[in-house]
């Protein structure tokens, strides 16, 4: 089996690859969101602590 035959999926390329593409996008987004959230939490905590120290 060559590559273009594989990509063609027996004529169902659009349906098969759209399904896998959407699943991939959703799953990767789910993986990235807690990474981003944790970074944001940490920087928020740090800046809050800095402000508290400046006031005292």
């Amino acid at each position, binding site marked *: *089996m060559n590559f273009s035959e*594989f990509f063609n*999926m*027996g*004529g*169902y390329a659009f*349906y*098969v690859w*759209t*399904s*896998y593409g*959407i*699943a991939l996008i*959703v*799953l990767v*987004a*789910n*993986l990235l*969101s*807690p*990474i981003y*959230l*944790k970074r944001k*939490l*940490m920087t928020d*905590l*740090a800046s*809050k*602590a*800095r402000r508290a120290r400046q006031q005292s």
Partner: protein
Amino acid sequence: MFTFFHKMASPKYFYGIAGKLIPWLGAACLITTLAGLYLGLVVAPTDYQQGDSYRIIYVHVPSAWMSLFIYMVMAIAGAIGLIWHIKLAEIISISSASIGASFTFIALVTGSIWGKPMWGTWWVWDARLTSELILLFLYLGVIALYNAVEDKRTAARATSILAIVGVVNIPIIHYSVEWWNTLHQGPTVTKFDAPSIDTSMLIPLLIMAVAFKLYYAVVLLMRARCEVLARERNTQWVKKLAGTA
């Protein structure tokens, strides 16, 4: 033994242990995903009726299984949180919601994309599709409710009750294809007889199911860690972690 569970359920210990587990589970997830995709997309033979379109099964069916499995985890963890007031159970419950919603969304969308070439329609209002859509709304309801309530412990109590009530939908989804006439086919794997699918097609399906379970474990632990940090932000150990104590 009891002290072990007690220690595990403390947010601080959970944070550390989860952090150590994530890379291992992530590596296992990556390996099983690649193996499952290779076996499913390249090695498994073409279906004699559906051609290559059936290969959507390797994302559709594991996602649909996960949508039910995660809901049960969310409801059971919610119940544990309600009964024994274990903070970690609340955190596991609410952290599951968005992952479950994502898998439900994937199951619905890939099912729709599969339905077009096979049934000739993107959508029908039959029992299986409608009950799965209700499951998506239940997940979204849990997420919206949690975000609407300021105090997170009160919010967790409310979402736990909603999740437990919604469990009634789970058997409806599972048996919908047997109780009502539908375009959706009956179960081929989760039934009492031997699965009516060839082994060469079944093995990649089961590998993908394991891969999705591992993915859920990884993202759940990551989300739960964030939730722990947010809730414990005024404690000494979190401040130390942020380098501010």
